[in-house]
């Protein structure tokens, strides 16, 4: 069984540009979560998608957005990139929006804004 896959592995962008990160959940998982892991700050919750809808978002500005496709894969878009957006972005998936069994994480996309 394939795990949670994220692409690209690394992404370098210039300040002001837009970044698009992609995530494919484990087969059968309908919920996708996005986290930002910045140095020294741990994991900060960004967005949660389930059944194609945004269910919740963390304390991030609107330039962080995303969507979930019918096959449950997801995109995270970051507009008007700022230097402090440089971080590891992790995607996780779970069954049906409940975290009873915990989350399964991808290996992340390292975004560097220069």
């Amino acid at each position, binding site marked *: 069984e394939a795990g949670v896959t994220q692409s690209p592995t690394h992404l370098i962008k210039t300040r002001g540009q837009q970044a698009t990160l992609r995530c494919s959940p484990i087969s059968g998982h309908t919920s996708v979560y996005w*986290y930002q892991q910045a140095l020294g700050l*741990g*994991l900060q919750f960004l967005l949660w998608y389930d059944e194609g809808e945004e269910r919740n978002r963390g304390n991030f500005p609107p330039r962080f957005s995303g969507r979930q496709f019918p096959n449950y894969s997801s995109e995270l878009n970051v507009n008007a990139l700022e230097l402090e957006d440089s971080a590891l972005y992790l995607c996780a998936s779970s069954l049906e929006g409940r*975290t009873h069994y915990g*989350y399964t*994480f991808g290996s992340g996309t390292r975004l560097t804004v220069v």
Partner: protein
Amino acid sequence: AQRVTQPEKLLSVFKGAPVELKCNYSYSGSPELFWYVQYSRQRLQLLLRHISRESIKGFTADLNKGETSFHLKKPFAQEEDSAMYYCALSGASGGSYIPTFGRGTSLIVHP
């Protein structure tokens, strides 16, 4: 609001010594609590969850609702336990389950 606190950024022990990684939480309902581990150059992975009352790789964690704690323990640390450990809480807020992680504790086990 829910919050997870891991008071130690770094915990350094010698092989064979007992280990306790602290986790305290703030949540008004019945939480679901987890420990995740991230070994060097590997992805973050679930270590254990309180509902299953299991022992994984010699680690155990007991939910203490009175002290609102979920500390991770191992009686004899091994070098391969060196990793970053995150405590996580899943609770309902406004009908949605909002996952919250602590900032993590780096465990270093010296030979």
